């Protein structure tokens, strides 16, 4: 019984204190810079740069920020199209997806986000590959 009470107390206490992944990543200032840097990397990456040929970059950066913030538990709503619709025409391959991940990792490295924290975010993003990779 005492254990049960302890558990209940823990259950009540934890949500109030638990930092979200978004917080661990550094919150808005850091994630804005990550998006900025990652986008710079995408556009400079000869493996995938061409897929951004018709992309409105400022809007893309806002949407990418919203998405990363949203999936990591931050206070954002993603206002863009779903992953399948926004990528179909680009005929993204497996290797293009990996290239994008590497560019995002480089951006997070630059912001000194811990490797294990990066992986928690990548673990959430990874399954999107099913919708994004169509070729």
């Amino acid at each position: 019984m005492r254990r049960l009470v302890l558990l209940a107390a823990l259950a009540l206490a934890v949500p109030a204190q638990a930092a979200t992944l978004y917080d661990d990543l550094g919150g808005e200032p850091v994630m804005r810079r990550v998006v900025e840097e990652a986008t710079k990397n995408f556009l400079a990456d000869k493996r995938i740069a061409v897929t951004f040929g018709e992309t409105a970059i400022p809007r893309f950066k806002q949407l990418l920020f919203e998405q990363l913030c949203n999936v990591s538990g931050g206070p954002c709503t993603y206002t863009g199209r779903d992953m399948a619709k926004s990528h179909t025409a680009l005929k993204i391959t497996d290797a293009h997806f990996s290239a994008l991940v590497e560019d995002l990792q480089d951006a997070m490295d630059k912001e000194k986000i811990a490797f294990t924290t990066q992986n928690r975010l990548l673990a959430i993003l990874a399954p999107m590959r099913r919708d994004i990779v169509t070729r």
Partner: protein
Amino acid sequence: MRYIALGCALAAALVVQSPVAAEQSAPPAADPKTSVAADSTIAPIDRFDSGKLLATGGVSTVEGSGGGGIATWALITSYGSRDAIGANAHATYITLPDFELRSYGAAIGVFDRVELSFARQEFDTGNTGARLGLGKGFTFKQDVVGAKVRVLGDAIYEQDRWLPQISIGAQWKRNNQEAIVKAVGAKDNSGVDYYIAASKLFLDSSFLLNTTIRFTEANQMGLLGFGGNKNDGYHATFEGSLAALLSRNLAVGVELRTQNDHLQFAKQERWMDVFVAYFPTKNVSFTAAFVDLGTIALQQRQRGGYFSLQVGF
């Protein structure tokens, strides 16, 4: 040579039946509302793309397959993506109190679906050879031709599912010391191992788990022949490894491999190791380990160092 031809034929048959081919021949219908992008926004496919993430090609086992050092993994070797071919070569040196084991070979990964590998193993008895009556420097050589097929799942990307990546494979082995292995009680100097392997990356906690069940007649991987006078036939052995990813290019872990106990003259014990693998780029990796191969040919406590180099793309 016969084995190589067999391996290639098997791989060719599998590639033909692979769903990858079907996927490519039937591109998904574009959504008319979204297919505004011209062909100019479609990035080309590179057939030698090194399109997997760093370290996810694994390293080369002493049997030549993609995996850890002594445990085979379900991951297809090399960095080739689902649209590409990758290849690598390895050289491995294990130094033990009474023996040396060298392995070198090459492997290719085709569309992240099929893996073909070749390894030459040299089990050098050194001074121990004289003690065992084999002659100083007596060396067992074994060729291993391997084929592996990814059957389902994706160890890396399917982070929202429990299903691991599952592969099946076979290794054709031929030892060049037929008379000796038969003299110590083995039934044959060649054999085929079959295995099913499961690998899963737990990305949110940064570790990789692999388990493999191998059906084998081999004694000490085949270096002491196949089958025996104490036990005979196929038995299931276990291989497992657990690796922690410390950074994009550094992993540490442990491996375990159980063995058959077929021979009256010498008990075979489980193998284990503790390793560190360093991947400075996708073109080269270094693995160092402390290995404990137990008792080999009556020589106890075969513990030593493992050093492996892999180059490829």
